[in-house]
């Protein structure tokens, strides 16, 4: 179901996904979805546990066994491309559960983004400006940081790869509300650089508040898509739970 004018990404979207099926072994987790993300657009994907949100993120970054359908980034098909190649081409994923390198320092964790990514204007100083605490802790091992600080490192690392499309999978999971605020605050400033952003979050309210458009995922399909400001909460909840 589509609510309002949901086509927001423009005629030549940054990311365009068509009839995408995602498989884990034989199991089909996503059943042929269409999605667009434009430059500088924030798109939210909501859905219950197991709906297939992470599967979709992993498919875009090239980390699933098999996909069918079409994923185009800047008009180019991503089919068969290795993750390293996709990241170098300008897509970065902040994966579920952060996934830092615990025995390496904050700086080393951040540097990785710069090394593997697209060359661009975002520097270490930009990240330290957004998250000043990381500047203080730059020499500390990642494992010695709090959960929130680790998430900041994960966000910073992804930004340093100078993506044109940033995928955020559950960036607020397990964090205290004030820290979630700190992290969500940077999303609009990332968008201002013309970066397209996909936000996946269990916190529906927060993720819809920041988004231009949203897709609601239910058991591997999009059950609802539209603009948050044009969609009432009841409709969202109905499609969220498949009622």
């Amino acid at each position, binding site marked *: 179901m589509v609510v309002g004018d949901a086509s927001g990404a423009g005629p030549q979207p940054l990311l365009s996904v068509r009839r995408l099926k995602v498989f884990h072994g034989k199991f089909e987790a996503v059943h042929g979805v269409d999605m667009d993300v434009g430059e500088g657009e924030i798109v939210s994907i909501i859905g219950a546990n197991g709906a297939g949100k992470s599967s979709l993120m992993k498919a875009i970054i090239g980390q699933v066994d098999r996909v069918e359908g079409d994923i185009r980034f800047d008009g180019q098909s991503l089919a068969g491309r290795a993750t390293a190649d996709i*990241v170098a081409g300008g897509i970065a994923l902040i994966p579920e559960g952060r*996934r*830092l390198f615990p025995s390496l320092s904050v700086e080393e964790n951040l540097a990785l983004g710069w090394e593997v990514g697209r060359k661009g204007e975002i520097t270490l100083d930009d990240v330290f400006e957004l998250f000043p605490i990381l500047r203080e802790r730059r020499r500390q091992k990642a494992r010695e940081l709090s959960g929130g600080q680790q998430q900041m490192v994960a966000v910073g690392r992804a930004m340093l790869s100078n993506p044109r499309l940033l995928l955020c999978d559950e960036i607020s999971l397990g964090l205290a509300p004030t820290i979630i605020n700190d992290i969500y605050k940077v999303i609009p400033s990332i968008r201002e650089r013309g970066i397209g952003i996909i936000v996946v979050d269990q916190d529906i309210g927060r993720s819809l508040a920041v988004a231009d458009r949203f897709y609601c995922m239910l058991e591997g399909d999009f059950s609802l898509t539209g603009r948050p400001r044009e969609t009432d909460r009841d409709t969202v909840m109905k499609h969220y739970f498949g009622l």
Partner: protein
Amino acid sequence: MTMPAQPSLRKPAMRRRAFLRSQMRNIAPFVTLIALVAFFWVASPSFATMDNVANILTQISVAGIMAVGLTFVILCAEIDLSFAAIANAAGIVVAYFTTQASYVNVHNIPLPGGVAIVLAILASAVLGLVNAFGLTVIGLPSFIMTLAMMQIAAGICALLVRGQIVYAVPDLVKELGAGSIGGVPWIVIVLAAFLLVGHIVLTYTRFGRYVYMVGGNREAAEYSGVNVNRVLAAVLVISAVCAGVAGMLGVAHFGSAQQNEFDGYLLDAIAAVVVGGTSLFGGRGGIGNTIIGLFVLGVLNNGLDHVQIDSFLKILIRGLILLAALIINVYAQNLRSGSVQEAD
């Protein structure tokens, strides 16, 4: 904005204990080494002499050069079981392309020394590449792939020498393997150079950091865009080339090349790396640990020859001490993950 510190880390004493626990992997091998040295010092008057120290250094050289390459592999949470056989193959290849005495009954192809050396190193690199292909392209576990390679390399050795023994190697190899300068054996200097370069690469280069990343959290490395397969391929080739050099120098050191010459080094080099405290689960440890591990092994092997023990019992004692060190390695891993929250 900081999260509350873990309550258990608040008191300095507790914090210190947590630190010690997290350093267990580095402390235990060092304590083991000191204990062994102390024991043999007391037990045998001939152990703690300058001559014997030089002996130990020479004795660990061949295994040590292999262990440098193996450290890279184990840091990636992979294993190489083929390096001793690859060393054997490289040693035989270099001899195969060297003029042998007339009584050596091998149909070899004499070439200039430099060419023979290059061919031997190339041969080991190619065998390492085959390992890499099996692991990264076909998707075989490294344990299986390198087990097969162990047999393949042994087969190459067998075909080249056909049960014979060859003796001559190029002059350069002979000098580095058996010669010395100012009383210091060249092979010890080569070992030191390999250890140094290995340490610099692992500690100060991007590639070295990727090795720790791939071993510490492979999924994270993949998701962030590290070319994990390329890193894995590189470490297997590095291991094979280190083995190739060790094999050539070993042949010069022992004075002959024959089938199965380095089989015993398989266990020695793996033990040195693991006893030194490099985690079998990847991501932790390094050349510093390997150095300690080499000394533990060298002191143990050498010291047992200086005390009056049944030589058959020695084999058992060696095995038991290695087992103890392995238990500490795994136990240190558990201490870590039990005491400090890991971010994966």
